C-alpha cells in the first residue's frame, strides 16, 4: 500500500499539499487571528478541553510560569462517554475551545469533517524531530499535520509473574508461543485464562492487526484508500478466531466489572494493554503488588518485533479558533516541557509514554514501579515505542469502528467469525465514506 507509494511522488504531493494549505491559511486566516502572545496586562486567553487526569494541574502550571498567555481549562467527559459528540457539536455551533484533546483513533474523523486547523506551518522539521516519528506519521494526513502528539502508547503485555514462574510457562515472544502459553495456563488452572480479547472495543483488534503490519486507511491521490481485509488483518483475524474458538482467552469487555473481577480472583493472569495500562492495572488490583511484570507484546516474527498503538492522545486546534499561534505555544509546552509532565503526574498515576523522548526520564523518575517489582517500565516502553509499525492510519469515519464493534458482539456470541467480520467492515466502511461524499478507493 503505502510502500508502493514512491518517495519522490510522496514529496511532490506533500509539497503541493503544503502549498495549498498555505494558500488556504493566507486566504481565510490572517486578519482574524490574534497575536501569538499578549502583554502582561492583556494576556491572550486560550481555552482548553480535555478529560485526562492532571490536565487542570498542567493548565495551572502553565499559568504560573507564563504571563502573556493564559489557559482556561474545562474538564469534559471522556471521548467515548460523550466527549466527542460534545466537541463535534461545539465545533458545529462555533463555540469550541481553542485546544482540544483527541485520541489518535478519532483524529481522522475530526480532520475529515474539517473540524481542525491545519498545523503544518507550526510543525517545522525541528519541532517534528522532538517526537517519536510514528506519532508524527499518525497525525499527518494528506501531507499536512493536524495535531501534536501527547503520548505514544505501544502495546505491552502485562502478566502475573508469580503464576508464570510457578507453572514454568515460558514468556511468549511470538504469537505462536502465546498460543502455547495460553494452553499451558488453561491446563495449569482450568478456570484461568492467559488474557482477554476485548470484544467491546474494536480498536483492540485493529491494534492487533496494526502490529501484524496491516494498513486499513491511507490517503493517496486525494482519496481515502480503505482496506480492512489485507493479508495481515486476515492472518490476525484467523489467529484470534482460533484462540476464541478453543476457549484460550476470556472475552470480557474492556475494564468492565467482569474483567476486573477476574483479575482480582486471579482467573485472568495477563493483560494485553499498552504503556499507559500499567497505572490502570495497578489501580485495579493494588493487592497484587509485586506479582505483575511487563514485557514486549508478542510479535509474528521474533526477529522483527512490531506492535501497534492502543489509544493515546494528541492535542489539536479547533477550526474556529482565532488564537492558533498562542494555542500552539501552549500545546508544544504541554507536549515537550518537563514541567508539564511533572504537573500531570502530580495528580495522575498514568504510565503514559511521552511522545517526546526527551521527557521519558522525567516520567521515569516520577512513576513508582513497585507494583511491577521495581521493573524499569520506561526502558521497556522506549524499546517498544521504537517497534511501533509506522504504516497505520486510523480511518475518517466512525462507521468502521461501529460496524466492527457490532460484528465483534456476534464473534464472541458465536454467530459470526472474525474473518467474516472484517469483510463486512470493509463494505460498510466504504459505503459510509462514499455516502458522506468523501473520495474513496476500495483497495481490498
Amino acid at each position, binding site marked *: 500500500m503505502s510502500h508502493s507509494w514512491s518517495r519522490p511522488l510522496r514529496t511532490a504531493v506533500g509539497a503541493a499539499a503544503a502549498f495549498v494549505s498555505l494558500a488556504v491559511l493566507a486566504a481565510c486566516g490572517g486578519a482574524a487571528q490574534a497575536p501569538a502572545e499578549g502583554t502582561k496586562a492583556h494576556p491572550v486567553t486560550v481555552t482548553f478541553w480535555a478529560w485526562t487526569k492532571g490536565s487542570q494541574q498542567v493548565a495551572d502550571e502553565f499559568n504560573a510560569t507564563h504571563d502573556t498567555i493564559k489557559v482556561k481549562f474545562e474538564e469534559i467527559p471522556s471521548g467515548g462517554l460523550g466527549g466527542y459528540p460534545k466537541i*463535534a457539536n461545539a465545533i458545529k455551533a462555533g463555540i469550541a475551545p481553542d485546544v482540544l484533546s483527541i485520541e489518535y483513533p478519532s483524529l481522522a474523523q475530526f480532520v475529515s469533517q474539517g*473540524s481542525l486547523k491545519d498545523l503544518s506551518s507550526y510543525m517545522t522539521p525541528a519541532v517534528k524531530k522532538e517526537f517519536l516519528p510514528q506519532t508524527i506519521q499518525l497525525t499527518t494526513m494528506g501531507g499536512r499535520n493536524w495535531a501534536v502528539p501527547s503520548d505514544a502508547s505501544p502495546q505491552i503485555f502485562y502478566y502475573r509473574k508469580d503464576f508464570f514462574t510457578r507453572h514454568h510457562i515460558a514468556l511468549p515472544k511470538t504469537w505462536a508461543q502465546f498460543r502455547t502459553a495460553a494452553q499451558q495456563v488453561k491446563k495449569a488452572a482450568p478456570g484461568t485464562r492467559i488474557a482477554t480479547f476485548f470484544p467491546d472495543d474494536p480498536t483492540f483488534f485493529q491494534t492487533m492487526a496494526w502490529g501484524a503490519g496491516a494498513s486499513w486507511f491511507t490517503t493517496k491521490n486525494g*482519496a481515502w484508500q480503505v482496506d480492512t481485509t489485507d493479508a495481515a488483518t486476515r492472518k490476525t483475524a484467523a489467529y484470534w478466531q482460533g484462540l476464541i474458538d478453543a476457549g484460550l482467552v476470556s472475552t470480557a469487555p474492556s475494564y*468492565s*466489572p467482569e474483567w476486573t473481577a477476574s483479575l482480582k480472583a486471579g482467573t485472568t493472569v495477563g493483560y494485553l494493554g499498552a504503556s499507559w495500562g500499567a497505572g490502570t492495572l495497578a489501580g485495579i488490583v493494588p493487592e497484587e503488588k509485586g506479582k505483575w511484570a511487563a514485557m514486549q507484546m508478542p510479535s509474528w516474527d521474533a526477529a522483527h518485533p512490531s506492535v501497534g498503538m492502543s489509544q493515546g492522545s494528541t492535542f489539536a486546534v479547533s477550526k474556529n479558533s482565532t488564537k492558533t499561534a498562542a494555542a500552539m505555544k501552549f500545546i508544544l509546552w504541554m507536549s515537550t516541557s518537563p514541567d508539564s509532565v511533572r504537573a500531570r503526574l502530580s495528580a495522575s498515576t498514568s504510565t503514559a509514554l511521552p511522545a517526546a523522548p526527551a521527557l521519558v526520564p522525567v516520567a521515569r523518575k516520577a512513576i513508582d514501579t513497585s507494583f511491577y517489582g521495581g521493573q524499569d517500565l520506561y526502558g521497556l516502553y522506549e524499546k517498544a515505542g521504537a517497534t511501533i509499525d509506522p504504516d497505520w492510519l486510523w480511518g475518517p469515519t466512525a462507521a468502521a469502528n461501529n460496524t466492527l464493534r*457490532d460484528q465483534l458482539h*456476534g464473534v464472541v456470541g458465536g454467530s459470526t467469525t472474525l474473518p467474516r467480520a472484517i469483510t463486512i467492515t470493509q463494505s460498510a466502511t466504504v459505503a459510509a465514506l462514499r455516502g458522506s461524499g468523501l473520495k474513496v478507493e476500495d483497495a481490498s
Partner: protein
Amino acid sequence: MSTDTGTDTTSTTGGPGAPTAARGAAGPRRPARRGPQRTGLAAGLLLTPFFALFTVAMLIPVGYAIWLSLFTQKLSGLGFEGPRNVFDGLGNYVDTLGDSAFRHGFWVLGGYVLFYIPIMVGGALALALLLDTAIARARRFFQLALFLPHAIPGLIAALIWVYLYTPGLSPVVSAMHSGGIGLDFFSANGALPSVVNIALWEWLGYNVVIFYASLQAVDRSLLEAAAVDGAGNWRLAFGIKLPLIRASVFLVLLFTIIGSLQLFTEPLLLSNTGSSITSAWTPNMYAYSEAFQLNDYGRAAAASVLIALIAAVLSFGVTRIANRKGARA
C-alpha cells in the same frame, strides 16, 4: 435527537396535551352567564403558560427536527475543507428506510413486543385481580412491594440488572452455574429476554396499581349480586371485573406500545457490556448512533420523525379500537 423523539411520541399519546385541550373546549360552554369576553380572557390567561411551554419544548424542536431531516452534509475529497449543508429533500428518509439496520430495529421491537406485552398485561391483570379478591392478605404490603421497582429510575434499574446478568460477578449467574444452568444473558438468544425482564421488573407494579385502582372503582353491589347468584372467584374475575375495567386495559396497552417503541436506555446500557446488542438494535438507538457516533444529524432526524409517525399511527389505531369496543360495551 432521541430526546426529541421522546417528546414527539408522548405528545401523540395525548399525555400532557389532551386533558388541557379538553378543558379548554369545555371552558366557554359552562359559564355562559358571565359573558363570553371575560371567560375568553381567563381561558387565554390560564392556557398561555401551557402553550408557551408546548411551543418551546415541543413544536419548535419537532419543527427543527423536520427541518434538519431535509438536509445532509456533504464532504468532498479528503474532507479537509469541512462539510457543506445540502438540501436533500426526502433523501434522508429514503436512505433511512433503505438501511437494513433501521428496519432490523423494528424486527427486534416486534420480537420484544411479542414477548413483553402479553406477559406485562397478563401478569399485571393477574396480580391486580389477586389483590382484589376477598381472600388476599397484606394488600398494602404487596401493593407497595410491587410498585417499589418503579420508583427506581430506569437507568439505575438497568445498571442493577447488568450487574445481575454479568458472568463472574453476578451471584445469580454463579448460583445458576453451580446448579448446572449455564444461561448467558448477553448471548444472541438471551439479550431480548434480558431486556424484557428489566422492563417487566420496572413497569409491572405500575400497571398493577392502575388495574387495582380501577378494580376498586367497580360497583361492589354488582359483585355481591353475582356472588349471591352463585358466581365463584374465577367467574367474578373474568365474567364481571375484567369487562368492567376494559378501558384501563386499553390505556395500559396504549402506553405499553408507545413505551416499547421508545425502547432505548436498557439496551443501550446492555450494549456496553459485551452483550450481543448492537449499536442500532432498536430504532431509537439507530437515531442515537447516527447522531452521536456517526455525526449524521440529518439521518438521525429523519429516523426520529419516522419513529414518531409510526407511534402516532399505532396510538391512533389502538385508540380507535378501544373507542369502538367501549361504545359497544
